[in-house]
């Protein structure tokens, strides 16, 4: 089933590329080049990359439908797993470096602070998705695999909310991610509408106009 074709080769290139932000952060930490508050830099950067990969993994389906290139689907798992990887780093940096000796505060944070609650919930949702991403799990879960993995949209909404709620006053950056996510929601919404109606041409038209906005 696995052919070592062009997509497989491109993934070999994409893998270290996706790992690069993490490597640069580690290098920056050792070289003392993460600014005045390195813990904050690490937390913010790992969180942003988690969100980026999460949103990238969500682009696969609409992009595939829009371009008609089905090979795109083979990148989705890797993108999703990188989202989980950065989200886990994000959580680890927070607990081990930021809280450090105060790690017991994590429970208070999660129960008392809404932005922490939703952030942690997003990570908790990603956990079973990552665990069931293997080919054998996909086979074993059958139709319920698809249902389970739709939770990724919930995780994405929670992740954006997490970002919104932690910002002090300048909402521009989280708004960008919320906007992208909103576009996906609209694309998916159009799609389900179009699927309900017989006119498939309308769907393609709808996707096309919105697709150009989203990218």
């Amino acid at each position: 089933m696995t052919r070592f074709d062009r997509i497989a080769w491109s993934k070999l290139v994409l893998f270290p590329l996706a790992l690069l932000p993490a490597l640069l952060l580690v290098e920056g930490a050792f070289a003392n080049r993460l600014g005045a508050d390195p813990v904050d830099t690490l937390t913010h950067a790992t969180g942003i990359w988690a969100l980026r990969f999460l949103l990238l993994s969500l682009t696969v389906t609409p992009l595939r439908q829009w371009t008609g290139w089905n090979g795109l689907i083979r990148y989705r798992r890797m993108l999703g797993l990188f989202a989980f990887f950065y989200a886990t780093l994000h959580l680890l940096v927070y607990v081990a470096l930021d809280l450090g000796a105060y790690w017991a505060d994590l429970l208070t944070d999660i129960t008392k602070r809404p932005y922490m609650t939703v952030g942690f919930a997003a990570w908790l949702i990603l956990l079973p998705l990552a665990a069931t991403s293997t080919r054998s799990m996909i086979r074993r879960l059958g139709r319920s695999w698809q249902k389970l993995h739709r939770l990724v949209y919930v995780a994405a909404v929670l992740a954006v909310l997490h970002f919104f709620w932690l910002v002090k006053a300048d909402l521009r950056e989280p708004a960008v991610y919320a906007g992208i996510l909103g576009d996906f929601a609209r694309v998916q919404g159009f799609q389900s509408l179009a699927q309900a109606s017989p006119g498939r041409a309308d769907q393609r038209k709808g996707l096309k106009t919105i697709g150009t906005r989203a990218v």
Partner: protein
Amino acid sequence: MKPIRDPIILPSEITDERDFRGRRSLLAALAASPLLLTGCQSASSEAPVGAGATAKAAPPVGPAAGGAIPGIKTSALSTSEPKTSWSDVTSYNNYYEFGTGKGDPVERAQSFQARPWSVTVDGECEAPGTIDLEDLIKPHAIEERIYRMRCVEAWSMVVPWNGIALADVLQRFKPTSRAKYVRFVGLEDKERMPGQRYPVLDWPYQEGLRMDEAMHPLAFLAVGVYSRWLPNQNGAPLRLVVPWKYGFKGIKGIVRIEFTNRKPATSWNDSAPDEYGFYANVNPAVDHPRWSQASERRIAADRNLFNARIPTLPFNGYAEQVASLYTGMDLATYF
């Protein structure tokens, strides 16, 4: 853990190209102004800071941002805790007038001209007026105050400020008995402060203190840091430092000081009244609605990636000196 940094030429040490090209006219203007003569003399008498810097840039003329301040007194009010490095103090700043990113101010404030500068002092006082910054400073000896600085975002620094006790300055304007509060207003200038083009706060920045807080010996007007005139990103040429309060009380680029009998509106309180109070006293027992204030990440020479977090102290460790200002007040209500 932190490796020793090479002595680097700071952007603030390098004369702006416009100044360099216009140096003759600048000198002519300085010579024509008797008020600025003292500044001119001090510039010629002081040794340039960092020999390496002089090779590439002209030494700062007068009290230019980043130039050395002569004859600084030490203070018993200073802490002996390990300091935050000059590079961290001058590169990691919350100064939304130049952008909301911590690195925005150092990047975008370099061409800001902080001199000439004047401050209007008015309201409930007998001697109001608009005074040139040099005249505001001149009668006072400049002191060093090494203070803890606790940001409301739960990080902190230890900063060697240079300046004057706020009370000493305020008294010169003879506040009347009707003066219950002091209001501070920052510069509003969208051309010179690009961050003000976005209404992230209601510009200009405003802050305020109760009169007894303003008259407290710890309250400080900073004109310098690390024995140099304030770099633009740190609030040049004049900023407030109130070490027992969260950092946002330390308004930068002050252009107006007003004595008033009513509690003044303050920028962050206006922006989110349930999150940022008028008093804004550092208090580990009263959390920010969204995050804990019980501890903080200290940015200082003795701290690294693995041991940055330390407990936050009531009134940022100045409780002994200032707690009596608030006796009988519920600090959870008046946060």
